[in-house]
């Protein structure tokens, strides 16, 4: 399936510079780009140096607000043109959002649209953060915090200044599951940002380890007073005991019902009672979850379930309490049926 990545980042954070530089790389030669610009006259597409035929401009408004129509239509149109040989046979799509976009509904549309299902595979979110102005932007614009919180890859642009270390620490607190890179003038290897297999890691089980390594970092910060006032907290849960599939389903349903948009992202590697040797990877954006992917084997000797939640100020302990109670309830029901 065709990997689709979302490139986001606040206004002026270096998205277009990064994209322009990436597209010059030979590994990105077969890439189609959808550029979403806010306003009637687009500019960014002129700044991206790539073949015009593979750049599509969306000027009708911010993608996250018009997602069901324009984005899906554009993707289908692009795929159709490729199949008819009207454009280059691209092997990847990058969607560059506006600087104010909320990436969550874009991801949700990519995951849930039936017309796109079977043709595309969500490859993750890359978020650019300006190292010079990033801290002030995070302070003033909640959109930028959410862009970082939902990211799978964060690229710190424009600097190698020492101050960047503090910003990196803050970003790791907002989103401990994201890999963090720096890129000066957009110079970064595409392989670090794309083909991450985040949503379908069956081909890259080792990568699951990478984002679950965040679990330790999340533990470090789970009880940290949020000194920046971002309102975003990460919570990690580790559970040795396998979880009943029914309990996991009820758990996800209750999270959707009670947490709503305050649950920004959730990632997990889950040991199910019914499939103890093949862990399930679960991946959610607010109430929308990618279908679980079962790995052929555990990626490491550690066979405990690990779940990471990135939330807008929700008490992480509740997730543990809820899952344990649900699993106990299901276990008791199974016991009574024997």
């Amino acid at each position: 399936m065709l990997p689709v990545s979302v490139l986001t980042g606040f206004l002026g954070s270096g998205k277009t510079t990064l994209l322009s530089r990436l597209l010059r790389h030979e590994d990105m030669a077969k890439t189609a780009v959808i550029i979403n610009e806010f306003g009637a006259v687009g500019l960014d597409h002129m700044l991206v140096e790539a073949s015009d035929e593979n750049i599509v401009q969306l000027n009708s408004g911010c993608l996250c607000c018009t997602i069901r129509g324009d984005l899906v239509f554009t993707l289908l149109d692009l795929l159709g043109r490729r199949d008819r040989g009207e454009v280059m046979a691209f092997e990847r799509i990058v969607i560059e959002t506006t600087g104010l976009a909320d990436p969550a509904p874009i991801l949700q549309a990519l995951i849930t649209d039936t017309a796109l299902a079977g043709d595309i595979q969500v490859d993750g979110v890359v978020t650019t953060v300006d190292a010079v102005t990033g801290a002030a932007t995070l302070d003033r614009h909640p959109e930028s915090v959410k862009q970082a919180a939902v990211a799978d890859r964060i690229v710190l642009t424009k600097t190698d200044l020492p101050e960047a270390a503090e910003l990196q620490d803050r970003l790791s607190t907002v989103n401990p599951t994201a890999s963090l890179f720096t890129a000066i003038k957009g110079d970064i290897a595409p392989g670090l940002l794309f083909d991450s297999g985040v949503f379908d890691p069956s081909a890259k089980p080792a990568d699951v380890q990478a984002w679950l390594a965040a679990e330790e970092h999340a533990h470090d910060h789970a009880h940290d007073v949020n000194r920046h006032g971002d309102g975003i907290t990460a919570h990690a849960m580790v559970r040795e005991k396998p979880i009943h599939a029914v309990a996991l389903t009820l758990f996800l349903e209750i999270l959707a019902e009670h947490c709503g948009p305050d649950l920004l992202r959730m990632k997990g590697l889950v040991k199910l009672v019914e499939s103890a040797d093949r862990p399930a990877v679960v991946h959610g954006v607010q109430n929308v979850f990618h279908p679980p992917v079962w790995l052929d084997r555990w990626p490491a000797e550690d066979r405990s379930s690990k779940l990471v939640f990135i939330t807008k100020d929700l008490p992480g302990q509740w997730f543990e309490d809820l899952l344990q109670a649900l699993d106990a309830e299901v276990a008791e029901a199974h016991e009574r049926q024997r």
Partner: protein
Amino acid sequence: MSESLDWGQRLEALLTGALAIWRIDGQVERDANGICILETEQAKVTIARVTDDGDPYWEVANPNGDLPPLPFGGIQGMLRAVKEAVGADETGTRLVIGPQDDR
């Protein structure tokens, strides 16, 4: 929460956390029988896990109201009833997994 907790302890933890999730000020107390009393400015609700005959179930009651105690087979229904009773804002939505025709 320890795996060895009894249902009264589990319930108390669940309800206390739920108030925070719903952004509602209130308190939860547990009596000697494991029955939890959740009190907010707007409502007082009692929640019990009933295990007398047959399968256990949850009972949600509003002792100051007119409604009779309502039974729920699982935690999901119990939490939904308590949320409604305390007048929490409806911020949640339904779970969606993968491609959906009806969205």
